[in-house]
């Protein structure tokens, strides 16, 4: 580099940092990554352990249930809630404020891990149906669960999620900000990712593209046809 000229560079890239990696065109690039075990942050580790233990079920503690309801009332208007539950996207009245509430002293490490866990656990709880999980979290983000019948599976499940959110995020405001961030712009429902069709291969599973796939056939036969 012009500014120091010292040989050989190593990038310290802590876990859970988002990264986009671009290879400089024309260079032969060789990199080695030394992946190190475990998380760097005691608090995140404790949170993660709690998350793994948290399997959503009806709450037993009335005091916690009451504060969870208060959290729901703090959310956005009920009219908006109904709209979100039906068709998304979520109302996000003050995203910039939300963002600030999500960043603790840890660069957002805990809220990020929590959001991933809540998504996966809600999916499991609702019969592994991504549509149901998305609708459910949209409704919570908008506070719609406060109007659900007091004795109902939906309310009990909502209280379970809110109890967990509160235990990690600390305040109702932060808990609701996280729900809004997770569901914003229809991210979970109706969804922003292209639909999956047919087989998917992944490198971490040591899967290879089947020999009959169009791409492989093109390469093997040397026809090298540009893609669709």
């Amino acid at each position, binding site marked *: *580099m012009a*500014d*120091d000229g010292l*040989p*050989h*560079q*190593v*990038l*310290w*890239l802590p*876990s*859970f*940092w988002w*990264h*986009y*990696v*671009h*290879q400089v065109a*024309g*260079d*032969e*690039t*060789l*990199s*080695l990554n030394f*992946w*190190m*075990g475990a998380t*760097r*942050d005691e608090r995140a580790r404790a949170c993660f352990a709690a998350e793994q233990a948290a399997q959503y079920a009806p709450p037993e503690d009335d005091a916690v249930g009451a504060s969870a309801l208060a959290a729901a009332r703090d959310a956005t208007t009920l009219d908006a809630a109904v709209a979100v539950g039906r068709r998304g996207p979520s109302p996000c009245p003050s*995203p910039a404020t939300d963002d600030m509430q999500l*960043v603790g002293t840890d*660069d*957002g*490490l805990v*809220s990020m891990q929590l959001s*991933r866990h809540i*998504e*996966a656990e809600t999916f499991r709880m609702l019969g592994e149906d991504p549509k149901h*999980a*998305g609708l459910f979290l949209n409704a919570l983000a908008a506070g719609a669960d406060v109007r659900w019948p007091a004795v109902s599976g939906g309310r009990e499940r909502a209280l379970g999620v809110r109890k967990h959110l509160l235990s990690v995020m600390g305040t109702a405001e932060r808990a609701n900000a996280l729900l809004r961030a997770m569901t*914003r*712009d229809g991210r979970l429902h109706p969804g*922003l*990712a292209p639909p*999956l069709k047919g087989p*998917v*291969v*992944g*490198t*971490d599973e040591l*899967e290879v593209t089947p020999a009959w*796939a169009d*791409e*492989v056939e093109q390469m093997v036969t040397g026809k*090298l*046809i*540009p*893609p*669709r």
Partner: protein
Amino acid sequence: MATICSPLSRAPQHAHSWRHHQPSTLPGPSVPPPDAPAYPSWLVKRSVEKLRWDDPRLDGFLRRGEPVIITGAPLVRQLVGRWTFDYLAKVYTGPPSLNVHFAPRNSRRYNRFYGQGVGQGGILMMTFSQFVSTVAKNEAAEKPPWRYYLQAMLLWSRHEKHNCKYEHGGELDVAGERLYHASMGRTMAEDLAHQVDYEWLRHVAEMSGCEGLSEVNLWAGRSGGCTPLHYDTTNNFLCQVCGRKRLLLLPPSAFAHVYPYPATHPMHFFGMVDVERPDLGRFPAFARAQGLEALIEPGEVPCLLSPFDCP
């Protein structure tokens, strides 16, 4: 110019004295400037800080979990100038079991996942020399139709052994740890045993609160392209041995801006936003994303002799 063979021989008398001296590097062949970033400039808040490997401030970056470029780090310094495509094509032997990602030239992306709805391209298994000749043939075409990117697991720890899907080719005992290496040929295994500074790695791992090495992967490419925005659950010391890479880094809190794939999607650790061409209509919160830019390179090689040639 004295040859420099150990990190200690470069250590300055005073921690910051290097700032007052011209860096001592051999003039290398001129390197063309890197191509411009493919993402919009508003995404870059600043560059990642650079610190010399023996700078006392390094400790703080490691402890805080804040990215930093460590220059002159001993970790794989002995491999710089030694490991090249030609060298690895000769010595990196073993079964054709290295993952080679291929993607159409115009898609620019290596996704780690391929299929309808996740990304164009696929994964093949090759030896390193097959990879090199495949790339050379492709690049020689008038309009190269593909890009290739190789990922190979070289080493893993005993903690990973039970779930490692690779057959191991042998064991290494380094810095008090037993590691397993993939089937790779004797020269490669010896390079990994003797040319990597595991003591330094253990030192920085302790400073950063990591629990120790879990695995080492090799990445090789020649035709540009990118790995889209994603996160890993492991801490990483990413070493550049050949060529240059540009990274854009965003803190964990950016999950609120990058629209991660749902947790149940195969690409759940990737963001749905294309950072090179962000669609702010679909992903409006991405307008508030800002990150750190890092251009990493092996730098000029201070010692072209192998350590065995040292007096």
